[in-house]
């Protein structure tokens, strides 16, 4: 039974590592928001370079999970957990990439961009709300709390609303070509943050799968109920 105990411990550690990836993403998002707020090109470059850490976490945990599949033949809850962790990892990696996407946009708007204070405020609010989603997704997974996971949809609606507000602001930004270009760039950033929120909801859906054994989409984007 000793090897089985070891296997359980290893699985627990891998879960902690995969969920720890969400902390890395949250830190990357914080820096990304700071870089947007202060038009800090250097900080943006750090975020881009630091994404290697998130990718490294992905590769390391992914490989270890594949090894567990090959050597321990996990079934039942263990199998569902491993399948869910593979999804979590994929989402973590994509969330990191979204931060990189945003940070690559920042130098494009120049040193003194014709920024709009209200729009920057909206994007920072989106980012703050998305960080809440990330930590809530992590807690829901660690606690196997399906209700908390389902609540991510409600939290994500806030991000979506802010994203729409950004879009309206961009439409009304005026005739100045530079300002319009800046607004377009910021819309791409808003869109990337909005996707990070969606990735958090995807992680929430995996919580439900681990607990119930059934995969349920919390929100079906292609068949919206409303």
């Amino acid at each position, binding site marked *: 039974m000793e090897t089985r105990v070891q*296997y359980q411990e290893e699985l627990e550690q891998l879960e902690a590592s995969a969920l720890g990836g969400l902390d890395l993403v949250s830190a990357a998002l914080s820096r990304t928001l700071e870089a947007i707020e202060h038009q800090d090109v250097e900080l943006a470059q750090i975020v881009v370079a630091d994404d290697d850490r998130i990718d490294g976490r992905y590769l390391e945990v992914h490989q270890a999970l594949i090894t567990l599949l090959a050597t321990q*033949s996990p079934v039942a809850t263990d199998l*569902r957990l491993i399948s869910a962790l593979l999804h979590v990892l994929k989402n973590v990696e994509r969330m990191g990439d979204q931060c990189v996407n945003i940070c690559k946009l920042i130098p494009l708007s120049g040193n003194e961009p014709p920024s709009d204070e209200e729009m920057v405020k909206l994007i920072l609010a989106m980012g703050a709300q998305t960080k809440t989603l990330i930590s809530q997704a992590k807690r829901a997974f660690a606690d196997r709390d399906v209700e908390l996971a389902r609540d991510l949809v409600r939290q994500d609606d806030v991000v979506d609303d802010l994203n729409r507000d950004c879009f309206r602001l961009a439409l009304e930004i005026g005739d100045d070509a530079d300002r319009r270009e800046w607004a377009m760039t910021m819309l791409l950033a808003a869109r990337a943050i909005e996707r990070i929120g969606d990735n958090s909801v995807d992680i929430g859906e995996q919580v439900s799968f681990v607990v119930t054994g059934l995969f349920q989409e919390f929100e079906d984007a292609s068949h919206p109920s409303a």
Partner: protein
Amino acid sequence: MNPDKIDTSREAAGAEAPQGGTAPATAGSPGGEQPASPPAPAKRQVELRGLSAYYGDHQAVKHVGLYFAATDVTAIIGPSGCGKSTMVRCVNRMHEEIPGARAEGEVLLDGGDLYGPDVDVVAVRRAVGMVFQKPNPFPTMSIFDNVASGLRFTGTARGEVDDRVRKALSEAGLWEEVKDRLGKPGLGLSGGQQQRLCIARALAVDPEVLLMDEPCSALDPVATLRIEELIGELKQRVTIVIVTHNMQQAARVADTTAFMLGGELVEVAPTDKVFTNPDDERTEQYVTGKFG
């Protein structure tokens, strides 16, 4: 099997409802009661009703209700001593051969109780074949005679024996390997071949059900794979019940998996459900290797 030998008149009074993943007889009959006028039972289907088995005072199988669907492979899993081998030995009435051992309840094949008063035990064993953990060809017999041995007791015409032996060896996937040495001793074959010889011997008398008690535990991985492939082919023709310690094997070959613990049937469900999302916490603990 000769239906005259099987008593079909007994009522299932007080018997426990059998469990089974795809049991048509139980579907839509809540409480496990038989429908008022049951349709003719499907060929080759086996039902255990309130089956208990004892070794003296010790009860090894406790009131098990279970259903083996005709074209399914059913795997019985559980820790050592859980009663899984004893249970399948009750299906061909081998359990009672052990001094002090007895069984209670009903085992129905095609609706007839194998424990009925007028049932011929020899007929039961012909209808319900068995393959054991260790290949056990008759040591003094040739390959041919091993397979033909059962036919001699069934009064098969001499001219027919050759064909039946060839057919059984083909079905067991052994014909091409042994056709040029049918007169050689069965013990001269490899372990995997010997096990397939035993399967051929069981198939020769045209059974309806094949019980396999850990059929691969003494075989190497290649021979194991060969037997597992064979199980997949044979299930079209015989109802297969396989007792196995190897959960991966159960997951690979079985359509339905039943988990036993302490003589009781804990859970029976389609195999994929048992191995991805079992209902019972004890099943979960066992299949994930947390005990047993």
